[in-house]
């Protein structure tokens, strides 16, 4: 059993997005965080002070831990942003404005 089977989901065909250039498969309706989780990735940001890895924490847009750069736009909350085919996701470091 997986969550898609549980809800009897019939999503449209999968598409490809990239994380730091590496190809990842995503489903229509998935957020950045959902696609990364499904690909087995749990962190995509390093903190401004200690450079520690972070990913989803609150899952509802409150904690801002899951910040990520999507199509060159930094400081997007991965738990909120839906993916489109070809989206380029980049891990985020520091303030997100440094790159």
């Amino acid at each position, binding site marked *: 059993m997986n969550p898609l089977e549980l809800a009897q989901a019939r999503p449209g065909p999968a598409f490809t997005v990239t994380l730091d250039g590496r190809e990842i498969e995503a489903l229509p309706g998935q957020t950045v965080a959902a696609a990364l989780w499904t690909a087995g990735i749990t962190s995509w940001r390093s903190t*401004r002070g200690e450079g520690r890895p972070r990913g989803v924490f609150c899952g509802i847009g409150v904690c*801002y831990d899951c910040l990520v750069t999507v199509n060159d736009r930094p400081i997007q909350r991965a738990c909120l942003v839906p993916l489109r085919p070809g989206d380029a996701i980049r891990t985020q470091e520091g303030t997100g404005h440094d790159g």
Partner: protein
Amino acid sequence: MTAERPHLAVIGAGPAGLAATLAAARHGVRVTLVDSAPEAGGQFYRQPARELGARRPEALHHEWRTWERLRDGLRTHQQQGTVTHLTDHHVWLVEQHSGGFTVHALLGPEQTEPAEVRADAVLLATGGYEKVLPFPGWTLPGVVTAGGAQAMLKATLSVSGRTAVVAGTGPLLLPVATGLAAAGVRVAALVESADPRDFVRRSRALSAQPAKLAEGARYAAQLARHRVRTLIHHIVVEAHGTDRLEAVTVAALDGAGHVRPGTGRRIACDTLAVGHGMLPHTDLAQGLGCRIDGVAVHVDDEQRTDVPGVWAAGEATGIGGAALSLAEGHIAGRSIAARLRGVEPEPHGWAGAARARTGLRRFFATLDEIYAPPAHWAEQITDDTVVCRCEEVTGGAIREAVTGLGAGDQRTVKLLTRAGMGWCQGRMCGSAVAGLIGCPETAARRPFARPVPLGVLARAGETPAPEAEG
């Protein structure tokens, strides 16, 4: 025709906001329902993204029939033109002025473009968010809030790993554990810190809500079916891993709420879903100058705040679950409908909802006592445990501000250490900081409910609001 109706803006499309919307619309009010999600439902009835094509979303939900009733009612009123539902609108401020209210929102997940709604009255049904108390390792990827694990599951049908521990305290842990288990995650343990003796002591108060007890029994049966080991009166003392979670150590509590030495055991897992209760979203109410009692918006019997024209319902006025939110929302909608037409409301019209509200408030007050975090939880925070996740402020830095620099309250600790000054504005660490200082938790003042681009702020109030003109 609808343009002559008084206009209500409802902030939040969860149970409270939906109940209020339907009650007000049925009684002659034009309603604009403003919500941040792509679909109505709030956190409790959070819907899977439409494109995922879920044919059985109810498998992830409880009280599905209630949801269908709310959803169908909303649809009917939308078709009649009495309700406008604005999705993906993230409200950052509600402004009061001589002409009524302006709801200032940012559009979509990017939150860069503004939208404004003008209204004669406002209902704040802003819900709540989860409280998590820190422990060593809680910042590791793979550690998520219990509600976050559930939200990700409900909205995106995704989970963060294969083996989970669900821990903390509160009634939310049960549906999270059973939900993850049903979705194929191996739930290695459910770790609840509450003392079973507290359930026994308060059994009379609990038995006043037999439906709620039956719900608890159903969860217990599901946990048994999924072979989830339940550790009562235990806590997670540490999460282990270098770049992601690999295991947790759980330990038993003694009668006084201290960790019992020698009881620690390690449980391998790649996901820890942890929560210690909920906190109300009060920012918009505070921005309007509404009275706050402790951490919740103060309301009267009609769900009115002390600011004329502003009502509040649901978790924003105190945590109490979906059924209570529905009752409060209904009462608020009826009160608003009467008062916006200049009529004194007749409370007997909502007597059923008022009775439900009284009973559920009492029930949740009892649950609050049972599910209070263990008395000495702050002992788990070592000096190098990060407490403020955003600004990476440690327990040691906060203790130093208290003992070395004379800080005795949350605001001074924030100014001295930056704890609570980051992106989340103290929503994640506020409870922990208060606990470390040993002062009662209060709602921090956040005039902006979410970050707002300076360009938008500079032009706030100038955005045309066509939907308000009907």
